[in-house]
């Protein structure tokens, strides 16, 4: 227990995410939704960020890794477990297993290479393609992403059907996602969407539903929230959920992978899509595109609290919206893809809430603002050390309420200065005041401004025209240099020094 405590204190000090309260989900049933690499990835994230679940998660990760072919991953998980629980029997890496597994991998790799070579000699396209695919899959499972990407790329030359290319693209996406390369992943998926017209009608929905969900994920991770939301909204819940299969059953693979289990579940689509939409859309848009969308509604039914947060936002109940999100902050911080984004997304939603809330008023006291948007809830410090910050906020509310006001004041000031919030602060009266609107005056002012700009342009134009008409044009110099700025950037002397004559008075 001592090691665990020390490990997480160090992480918190280093600014890493630490979720001290246990999440709302049950680890075992949560992780049962996933297969393959993402299972170990997710367990590792939970194991290194959440003290109450750390040991359990890492032990599961070690057991899981030992069944796989990625020896480095196994050693890493062992090391992670050792850091928090040195006495755990699983934390001691099984080196004999590692040695034999390395040898096995080497042998299998050689065998696949040899087979591929044989296919190449026979010049049968389909065999070469499948041989490359096998080699890519194998390299992916051993964690050798560079070779995997190379093998998958080779498939293109031997593809005979558009479907083959689509499959290859999906493989490449998976490799890119595993390496956290969001931009290449997104571009692979764009390619997949351009293939859509040439695919066989029966294959279309399969590739589509995977493509949209994955593309949404790639954009989300690349912080393009609006694009992400639009892509998630196009994913078809029926096809996607069906592909996931029932718990225990395998589900329907596309390109040899059951995507809803290997990368993101329908529940994840709901959370990822919902949060991207909340962060990037206006109230009207949220209602029309998300809440009223018959397709996305089915996803949202899986995560009702996301739907609730959106409904609160649409109905202008901003405080409830924020507190609903806040309740799940811990859960989302333990998600492998959301972890680095939660703070940013929450801050965006909060900004939008403040701006939208204030839109309805001409003047709000800062006390009221602080009550509506309790500063400590989403302040950056809360991300790292939620336990301590809740303690201080409790103390504050007990003693004096001036600190929240000060905090909201500086937050509002930052919003105003960055031009997000159209308002001004009245410090002596402790008010937030909306800018006066005087449309008549504004029109006059803008007309005057336009006219001035128009006059300026016209005058310069006229001057130029008249100079040309009078034959006053600056001739290109015959000899480079004298009196001119030469092409090589050397400043020539000013014309007889006359030009600087007035310089003294400048």
């Amino acid at each position, binding site marked *: 227990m001592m090691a665990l405590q020390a490990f997480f204190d160090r992480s918190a000090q280093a600014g890493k995410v630490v979720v001290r309260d246990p999440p709302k989900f049950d680890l075992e049933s949560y992780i049962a939704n996933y297969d393959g690499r993402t299972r170990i990835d997710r367990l590792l994230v939970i194991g290194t960020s959440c003290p109450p679940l750390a040991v359990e998660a890492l032990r599961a990760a070690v057991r899981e890794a030992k069944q796989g072919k990625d020896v480095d991953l196994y050693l890493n998980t062992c090391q992670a477990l050792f850091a928090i629980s040195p006495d755990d029997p699983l934390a001691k890496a099984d080196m004999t297993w590692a040695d034999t597994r390395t040898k096995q991998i080497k042998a299998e790799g050689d065998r696949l290479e040899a087979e591929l070579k044989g296919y190449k000699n026979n010049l049968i396209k389909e065999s070469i393609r499948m041989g490359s695919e096998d080699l890519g899959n194998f390299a992916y499972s051993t964690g050798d992403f560079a070779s995997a990407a190379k093998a998958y790329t080779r498939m293109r030359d031997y593809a005979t059907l558009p479907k083959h290319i689509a499959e290859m693209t999906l493989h490449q996406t998976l490799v890119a996602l595993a390496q956290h390369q969001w931009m290449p992943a997104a571009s692979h998926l764009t390619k997949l969407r351009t293939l859509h017209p040439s695919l066989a009608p029966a294959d279309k929905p399969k590739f589509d539903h995977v493509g949209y969900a994955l593309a949404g994920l790639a954009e989300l991770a690349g912080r393009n929230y609006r694009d992400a939301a639009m892509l998630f909204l196009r994913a078809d819940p029926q096809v996607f959920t069906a592909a996931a299969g029932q718990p225990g059953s395998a589900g329907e693979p596309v390109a040899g992978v059951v995507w809803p289990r290997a990368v993101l579940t329908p529940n994840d689509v709901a959370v990822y899509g919902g949060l991207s939409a909340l962060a990037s859309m206006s109230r009207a848009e949220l209602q029309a595109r998300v809440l009223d969308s018959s397709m996305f509604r089915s996803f949202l039914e899986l995560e009702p609290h996301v739907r609730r947060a959106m409904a609160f936002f649409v109905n202008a109940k901003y405080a409830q919206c924020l507190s609903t999100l806040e309740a799940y902050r811990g859960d989302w911080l333990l998600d492998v893809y959301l972890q680095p984004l939660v703070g940013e997304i929450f801050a965006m939603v909060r900004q939008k809430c403040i701006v939208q809330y204030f839109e309805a008023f001409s003047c709000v006291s800062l006390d009221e603002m602080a009550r509506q948007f309790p500063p400590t809830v989403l302040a950056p410090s809360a991300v790292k050390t939620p336990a301590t910050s809740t303690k201080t906020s409790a103390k504050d509310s007990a003693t004096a309420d001036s600190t929240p006001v000060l905090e909201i004041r500086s937050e509002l000031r930052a919003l105003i200065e960055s031009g997000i919030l159209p308002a001004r602060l009245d410090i002596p009266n402790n008010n937030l005041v909306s800018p006066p609107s005087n449309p008549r005056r504004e029109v006059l002012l803008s007309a005057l401004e336009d006219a001035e700009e128009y006059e300026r342009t016209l005058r310069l134009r006229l001057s130029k025209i008249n100079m040309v008409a009078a034959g006053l*044009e600056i001739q290109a110099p015959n000899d480079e240099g004298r009196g001119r700025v030469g092409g090589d950037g050397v400043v020539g002397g000013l014309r007889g020094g006359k030009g600087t004559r007035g310089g003294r008075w400048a």
Partner: protein
Amino acid sequence: MANLVATLLSFPPDHYTVAPPSKVIYDRDVREYVKQLDKISASSFVKAVDGQELIDLLDPIRNSIAYLYTIVSELQSIASSKPKPLPDDLWTRLSIFCTSFDPIQIRYVGNEFRRLLEHLERLARVYNSPRVPVQLMCAGMLRMDPSGATFTSTHLLYVQLCLEARTLEEALPILDKPIVGFPSQAIKGIEEQPLCADHQVSSAYITLNSGLSSAVSAEDVQEYYLLGAITYIGLRQWRKALTFLEHVLVAPTQNTATGLMLEAYRKWLLVALLIEGKSPSFPRGVNQEALRKIKPTSKAYEAFADIYKSGNLLRLQAEADAGQGLWQDDGNIGLVRQVIRHFTESQVINLSKTYVALPMLDIAQHLGETPAVTAQYLGFLATSGQLNASLERNSATSDTSSQILRFYSDRSSGPLAQSEQQLHAALVEQKQRILELAHQLKDGNRRLSLNKDYLEYAKTRRDRKEQARDGGAMDLDWAGPGEDEDMMGDLR
């Protein structure tokens, strides 16, 4: 000698007062008269006649041409002889002439008139009180061409003089008149109206042949604008200075840049900071190739502008200090100092975008000054018209630190309020200026369309069109009869 007087007085003939002559006859008479005057030697003008000076027999309003000849001869003789005190009544005569001559007559003797102005300029340099000749020169130029809209070699001379004599504000009457025309060759067969006719634009009679201006080059025009900009900078009229600098930058060029453009670009960057706090977009029509040559040599200025935008006073100050020698050499040190002063001012002014009101202590903290200094500073900003705000004193104490600065939301209230009527009036005035410009633009367009190159282009185009019509194609270019659209008409 009496003969000379008779010749001088022979124009305008008496019968003009009875029946004003037609423009053509007037034109013929004047030319004949000037031909006669040109035959008379310069020395005869300065001789006394019957114990009376010749000039006293002439009326500067009626006999403007003769008066001009006489006074120029006199100035000439003074200039060529040894320095001696100027005759007392010379100034009187000069000022009477410059403020009252008949500009129509003078159009015919441009060369002499220009020499008069040049003498005045020379006098201003040697005379210990330059203001008088400077003012006379200005009066003469504006009487000759009240619109001041045609550039002449005297324009450049005058601005140079004002800068050297440090009489900056004297240059304003000339600088404030927008230049729309340049002396050029009259186009044969088209612009052969007599000089005395009522021309719509002054460039119709200020031509290269008229002698009112010596030949000017594009560099002269650029120098005029640059010196004008320096004058405006000296008078802290930033907006006008910026426009003048832009005039230098948009000068037509065959993809080459001049040192004047380089200097203008550097000043332009600095002045733009004073007005907008950032580098504005380039005016349209700047030659991109020329710009490409200027920019790499002005990196220090661009860096300075970037730091200004980043909003860090210490860095700005450090950059200004680092470039001290450069600013000094370019004659821009004053501008750089001005920019730094303006930086603090704009910080306070920008507070009004974030706050309705805030305590003095906060501002003092923001500026890193004591409340007393801050209060003084704010008072200065408010009285100099840069800050639309007022200081409210807390009635309980007289301590300055408890004061509150209250910004007014916009210019509709507060000490710097502008009423809607004022805005409307400004708009109407603006409209008038634009309409006038549009008129001049038409004229410029007409002149360009008479350009030889354009005519050739138009001819080939017409030929091609005729060929096409022969082939049976329809003339699709016909735009139909239409009036010019009155865009601002509904403003009235």
